């Protein structure tokens, strides 16, 4: 019996059977592709109840329907408004949602960390409503640590790019004054092909401030000195000069920085 001769019920059953057969056949391919995409850092976002609470029902439905980037941008603009009113708590609430929706957007992690560690941190330290200096310092410390958490979480989602490692180095160097960890973060940033050219130098400067690593720092500074004339900035030259004395570097191994210093900062 041909398809056209079959009863309507039989024909509809055949269609359903066909749909199920195709559906089962596609499953392994879909499953493998999703795994490949996750392995390549795609589709890492989380749509859980926290996000639902943060974006509202409509926003959540939009995010579920494949418009999470647009929802994230909308929330980011809301975050900007909150920033102009210095509503730090609301900003954190919104930034958590944005980074959950778009974990591969480094700029969100970067700015979230900057807002917390720099802007909110300073605001907490200079809070006129808090008379206790100790509590102000504690609040500042907490905001800085929140900024650090954003960067560390961002790095988990973007381990293949330099920018967040560099920002982590900045945070350790300028806010937490942990020069050893700063040097490590800059070194990790410099290992990426998209790192800015000054990052390696920043790492060497931070290593120079890390107790017990003076020899290592000197070797790195010398490597940079020999790498290119463009690396011979005054800070690098002064550090080399200092370590040559402190580490008792033999005269024949020393470099004379006088001429380089005369040339000034390389352009």
């Amino acid at each position, binding site marked *: 019996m041909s398809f056209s001769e079959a009863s309507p019920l039989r024909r*509809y059953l*055949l269609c359903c059977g066909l749909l*199920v057969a195709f559906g089962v056949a596609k*499953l392994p391919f879909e*499953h493998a*592709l*999703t795994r490949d995409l996750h392995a390549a850092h795609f589709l890492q976002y989380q749509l859980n109840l926290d996000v639902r609470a943060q974006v509202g029902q409509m926003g959540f439905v939009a995010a579920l329907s*494949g418009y999470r980037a*647009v929802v994230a941008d909308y929330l980011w603009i809301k975050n900007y408004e909150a920033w102009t009113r210095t509503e730090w708590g609301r900003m954190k609430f919104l930034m958590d949602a944005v980074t959950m929706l778009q974990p591969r957007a480094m*700029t969100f992690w970067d700015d979230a960390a900057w807002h917390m560690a720099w802007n909110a941190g300073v605001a907490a330290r200079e809070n006129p409503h808090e008379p206790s200096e100790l509590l102000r310092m504690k609040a500042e410390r907490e905001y800085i640590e929140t900024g650090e958490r954003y960067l560390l979480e961002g790095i988990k989602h973007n381990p293949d790019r330099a920018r967040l490692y560099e920002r982590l180095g900045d945070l350790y160097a300028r806010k937490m004054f942990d020069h050893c960890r700063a040097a490590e973060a800059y070194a990790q940033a410099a290992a990426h092909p998209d790192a800015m050219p000054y990052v390696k130098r920043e790492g060497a400067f931070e290593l120079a401030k890390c107790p017990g690593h003076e020899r290592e720092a000197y070797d790195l500074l010398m490597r940079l000195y020999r790498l290119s004339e463009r690396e011979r900035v005054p800070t690098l030259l002064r550090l080399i000069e200092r370590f040559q004395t402190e580490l008792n570097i033999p005269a024949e191994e020393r470099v004379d920085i006088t001429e380089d210093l005369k040339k000034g900062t390389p352009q």
Partner: protein
Amino acid sequence: MTTQVSARATKHRTFSFGRVSAIASNTILELIRLKVFYILVLFALAVIASSLFQAKITFQDQFQILKDVSLGAMSIFTWLLATLSTAMLLPKDIEDRTLYTILAKPVPRFEYLLGKLLGVMVMLLLAIVLMSAMMVVVLYLRETVVAADEVAQTPPEFRAQRLAEVRASAFNPNLIPGVLVVYIKAVVIATVTLLISTFSSSWIFTIFISTAVTLIGHLQATAREVWMDQQVHGFFTGLFTAAIAILFPDLQVFSLVDDIAVGTAVPLILFVKAFGLGTTYIVMYFVVAYFSFASREL
């Protein structure tokens, strides 16, 4: 000689691309004449162009928001176009009695349905080309402004690098796979809508069900992973997740466009696989749509 020519002319071929293209070109004309096409495309172009101004109000990486808004608008409007235009195709032909005129001639239903789908595909391609052109123009204009600012503000030794970064952040070839993914997703949705319209009695029902399928399609991956990794408890829960995993397309795969917008380069092999999966869905739902349409009493 004359007898031979007339015999060749009257010989009916099982499949004729000429007939399919005639139906497809007629469908394109029908769709382009619809006001909804112009309204949606114009609205999409307006949204993409407005992102030029939205980018100015934030201190944020301007290009990211610009690309997100542009690709988001393309995704929303191609989805709307795919659903609305495909849902109206068959009911309109039935209402106008055009369907009976066509099928009364030696035109197989397969060719009729294929012609309709091809017509929608071309219309979607046209819309996406227009929207992409607008996105490129907007990105170029923004790039010109940002590049001028960078030249003025950056020390000469870093200028070349900053300009290269600005150019890389603006339009880069990574966006092309993103646009293609948006297109293939819209065609998948159009094919699913076509399948629904083959058994549906009203276009409102078709639009409603197609929208539901699109929404569920974005959750199919979750249901599939839960079911395939055997994390379900209870027979009915298992049956429900299995039904979703089997019957619905995985539209989440096409959400990789959001990652492309933030600068993640999609490896060629992954893009080919995602495109291949989209093509498989189109073929699969079209074949089922044909059998459903062939079963329909007209």
